[in-house]
């Protein structure tokens, strides 16, 4: 069965500092990988996704993630964070091919950007 582990429940960081949010997954088949962001009291917004090809994926708001198959990881990074990046971040995995398109989510990481 697939699973996703987000290794940090909370990540405090100062504004303009770099940040890395860690995500590991387990799956016996090829997968698609996603990062979503959730601002307070809102739905989830897609940050980026890995489907195939280049292992370095660039997303919105200056975020990027690197797929590492040997380490089964998909860590999210940003070189310089802003106060507005304060939010909950979710890593997710989807098996393929699948008509259902189901996603398995990690427990989330709260990014707290301090001035």
């Amino acid at each position, binding site marked *: 069965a697939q699973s996703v582990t987000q290794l940090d429940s909370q990540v405090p960081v100062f504004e303009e500092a770099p940040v890395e949010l860690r995500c590991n997954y387990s799956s016996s088949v090829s997968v*698609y990988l996603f990062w*979503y962001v959730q601002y307070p009291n809102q*739905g*989830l917004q897609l940050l980026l996704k890995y*489907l195939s090809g280049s292992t370095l994926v660039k997303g919105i708001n200056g975020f990027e993630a690197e797929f590492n198959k040997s380490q089964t990881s998909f860590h999210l990074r940003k070189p310089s964070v802003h106060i507005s990046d304060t939010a909950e971040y979710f890593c997710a995995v989807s098996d393929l*091919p699948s008509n259902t398109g189901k996603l398995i989510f990690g*427990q989330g990481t709260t990014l707290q950007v301090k001035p």
Partner: protein
Amino acid sequence: SQTIHQWPATLVQPVGSPLSLECTVEGTSNPNLYWYRQAAGRGLQLLFYSVGIGQISSEVPQNLSASRPQDRQFILSSKKLLLSDSGFYLCAWSVRGRETQYFGPGTRLLVL
């Protein structure tokens, strides 16, 4: 462009009362539809998904049910709410056979 709506945005209900949350999608046809619950301080739990009208798959046994009476309408219901049903309910859609899900704004449910 496609949009997804959920209502109500917030709801406070007494224990034992019924529930009906609605989700509708515009600008697409034959979407896959999903209901998730997000309890306080926890991740997202997939409750139901649907690949077509009248086709509902339940992921976890619970006090809730789902229905899809129309192609782009997905309803989450309960006959008698429990305290443990409190949470943030998210509806999502995807193009059938495609990998990306798009989420609605959510409904915050508080059962007292």
